């Protein structure tokens, strides 16, 4: 049996390239991470020359692994591009949020104002140093949330598809 981490690692890397790298992310879509998770299961079976039934547990593990690897690589790419350009989508969108935020209420809401200060601190760090630890954590949490869910769904769909294909080949 070959290492079960290799195919989720490769597919997760591929998915992160298509979701984060400028230029390539224009073709990014909600189908990429589920497709990568299904593909990782398929590649694992291919590399082991196996036609055994895939169980839900295995599909879930592969889906989650692909999702987490995708999130890790996406975060690494984001750190790299943020360091190069010293800006990103978050920094660009913040002024609009600030305008809307200030226009809504005259009464100060301490907690919300504090959170907004953290956002501004992140933007300042990115623009001056090209890196913000808070933004990196924020980005990783946001990305892994979606990647894990979509990876899980992709793993289960991949399981259904591969099992059916294997069964058809056996008959």
């Amino acid at each position, binding site marked *: 049996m070959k290492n079960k981490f290799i195919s989720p690692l490769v597919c997760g890397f591929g998915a992160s390239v298509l979701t984060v790298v400028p230029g390539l992310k224009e*073709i*990014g879509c909600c189908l990429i991470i589920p497709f990568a998770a299904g593909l990782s299961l398929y590649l694992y079976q291919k590399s082991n020359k196996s036609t055994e*039934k895939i169980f839900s547990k295995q599909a879930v593990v592969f889906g989650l692994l692909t999702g987490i690897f995708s999130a890790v690589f996406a975060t690494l790419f984001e750190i790299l591009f943020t360091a190069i350009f010293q800006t990103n989508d*978050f920094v660009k*969108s*913040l002024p609009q949020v600030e305008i809307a*935020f200030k226009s809504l209420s005259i009464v100060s809401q301490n907690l919300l104002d504090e959170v907004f200060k953290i956002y501004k601190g992140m933007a300042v760090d990115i623009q001056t140093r090209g890196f913000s630890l808070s933004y990196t954590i924020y980005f990783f949490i946001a990305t892994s*949330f*979606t990647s894990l869910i979509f990876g899980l769904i992709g793993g289960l769909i991949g399981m259904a598809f591969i099992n059916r294909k294997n069964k058809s080949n056996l008959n």
Partner: protein
Amino acid sequence: MHPKKYLIIFFIFICLWCFGIISPVVFHNVKVFLIAKPFLNQVYATVCHQSPEKIISIGGENIFVCSRCAGIYLGLLLTSIISFFIIPKNKNFNFLLLTFALLLLDVTFSNFKIYNYSKVIALLTGLLLGLTLLQFVLEQLNFFKTQSNYEE
């Protein structure tokens, strides 16, 4: 797990997900939401390119995903509701391939400027794929429930 349980879990997820997509429209003047908006935007950015010219606006507020992705999610939501009443029995793989081919053609033609990007076409091709995708998945799950000739 019984396929109906998959469907219920999926239905809850897709309802929350679709509500999240339109949340900028629903909560456009809520201050708490403005704080959460950049985070939610990043959550949806993982699965959609969010190009401003391809995003649907409702009442002047942009939703979180592009027309094509909105179509796919809407299709999945509609199919999950329909699937509670009608259980798919036919093999829908050909329909799935057809709708996927339509979507790919639209992506190719609009990216290579054979015709200009249209939000309506993108929404419709996405909707068709969403409608057939869940049908296909449920059909696959039902297949394993009803056929026990696979050696465990």
